[in-house]
């Protein structure tokens, strides 16, 4: 267990001895770690090391074969798909490498998308989405479809969408992987400021060791195992 995570009761993420295999491939093996509230942790490793699978397990996108995952004090391994979806709606945001925006919806509508099944007035929903777009510097792009936005703008929309339900944990899967270095840096600055200013727990998968310098702590992954914490 990580030394930094002594008080499990207040931790954002607690992972205990989780393993996952697909046939003979074992992308995640006996992994344990803990992330505290408000921490910025990066998960680093080369391609195929199992970091994206691990992120998927922690976010509840798939279930581990063994082990336990606790998010915000709640064990998620036993939850069904709907309970996991509700858990994500309530306390988790996700930033994808390839954005996953809905092509038929405008930037504003994409940001508001997680709130569509929630019973809140449309006006309030749109105000919240617009405010996040403003925060991301996309005030003038609210009505644009994703196809009309640049890569950096799309990633900002994705981040705004991840924040619209006011999550306490933000999972990011290579958020700068599809961006040029300048845009990538802007996006990173934005994420770091969210962590520092708003106290959002940030758990980021990356293969870029430069990014680790910005985080509080890094977990290194190799052949499905977290080899060491830094």
């Amino acid at each position, binding site marked *: 267990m990580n030394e930094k995570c002594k008080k499990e009761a207040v931790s954002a993420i607690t992972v205990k001895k989780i393993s996952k295999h697909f046939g003979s491939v074992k992308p995640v093996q006996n992994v344990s770690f803990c992330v505290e509230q408000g921490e910025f942790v990066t998960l680093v490793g080369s391609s195929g090391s199992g970091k994206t699978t691990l992120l998927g397990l922690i*976010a509840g996108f798939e279930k581990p074969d063994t082990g336990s995952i606790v998010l915000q004090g709640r064990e998620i391994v036993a939850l069904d798909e709907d309970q996991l979806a509700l858990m994500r709606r309530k306390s988790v945001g996700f930033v994808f490498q390839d954005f996953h925006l809905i092509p038929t919806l405008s930037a504003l509508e994409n940001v508001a998308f997680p709130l569509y099944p929630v019973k809140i007035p449309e006006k309030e929903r749109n105000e919240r989405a617009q405010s996040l777009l403003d925060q991301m510097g996309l005030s003038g792009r609210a009505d644009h479809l994703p196809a009309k936005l640049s890569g950096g703008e799309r990633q900002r929309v994705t981040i705004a969408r991840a924040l619209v339900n006011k999550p306490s944990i933000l999972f990011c899967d290579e958020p700068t992987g599809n961006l040029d270095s300048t845009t990538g840096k802007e996006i990173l600055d934005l994420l770091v400021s969210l962590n520092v200013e708003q106290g959002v727990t940030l758990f980021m998968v990356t293969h870029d060791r430069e990014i680790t310098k910005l985080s509080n702590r890094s977990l290194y992954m190799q052949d499905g195992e977290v080899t060491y914490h830094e």
Partner: protein
Amino acid sequence: MINRKYLISELTKRGRRSVVNIGMVALVTTILICVTLLSGALEKAFQAPLNDIGANITVQKSGDVPEQMAGPVLPCSVAPITNQQRIEIEQLPGIQSVSQAVLFWDFSEDVFQIVVGMNATDKAGPALLRSAVLEGRMLTETDTEKALAEIVWAEQNSIGIGDNVTIGGESFIIAGLVDASQISQIGTANLYIPLQEAQLIASKAAGVKEIHSFEPQDSNILFIQADRDKTEDLAEQIREMLGEKTSVATPDSFKQLLGSMFNLTQRFSALISGMVFFLAMLLVVRNASAAIAERTKEIGTMKAVGWTGADIRTQLLAENGLYIFIGTVLGVFGGVLAAWGFSHITIAIPVPWDMAPIPHFLPGGAEQLFRKVQLQMDFSPQLLVLCCAVPVLLGLGTVWSAGRAVSRLQTSEVLRYE
């Protein structure tokens, strides 16, 4: 909870998919309406010749050709049916009523006339002429020595109300002029007289006696009202009772009379319609499944950002429900247009010569007779509901089951979907 913005944007911004989905539903609905209406209209058309005379079965027997064309003779197509045979037919289960008629040709020195004897109060057969009286009056139950004349024949022979005509040597006064074209071609004649008098004339006539035994209570055409679902069974039983030379007409026999060409065309059309319909059904299912498959990754995003299975299914059902609603409305519109087009089609139902026994030596006597029927499209709310229900249930059922399957997958599986 359905999101209207998302619903409308999917409909409008995925134009091609929307057009294909809506078009498929519209096509299936239109085909269903057309096939159902056409088949109903054709069935009605085949019943038209018999409906005209208020019966669904007519019975005649073939006999020998008269040796001499002098005085009253029975055409070879209407040999006597005994009163005992009529009573036996009347007692068959499913028979509602049996009306008798006697049809004979009357040859005198310079006149030829077709004469039918009928009961004026019958529910079927020539008695239906009561609604076709153009001048004078219909015969009554108590009338004797009175006759009705077919108006065209009467004009040609300068005969009017109150005039005397001689039939089989007996004198009759014309009580009314009728338009016999209104009761199809079956059992039509130049003159109509009371049944008992016709039976008496036929039973005494030398030309009849030469080849037949005709008693005063016999007849030679029966008009039968029977239970619709038993018509064909009854027809078979009557054929067995009266022997090989019996001609029993039913709606089905008119269908067969249209000939092999028509049957082939009809079968071919049915085959084509069936194939198009089946193909369209498959396309509805395929499109509905494709709509889900195409959006599998999007469904992964929905799940990733917190949409539950129920949220996803509701949204997908609403979207496809909208496609199906628009498609069904367009399909009904298309069906109405097609039905309007079909209602202008007239088909000619052939009436066999033996059912309208006009001597072949008269002008037009050897020509095939037809009853022209305009196809009648019967739109009913039940038909519309039925025709709309098939694509609606099929489309929504497919979307629901496909959506359910996808929404049950783990989020990572759906997100990875390509």
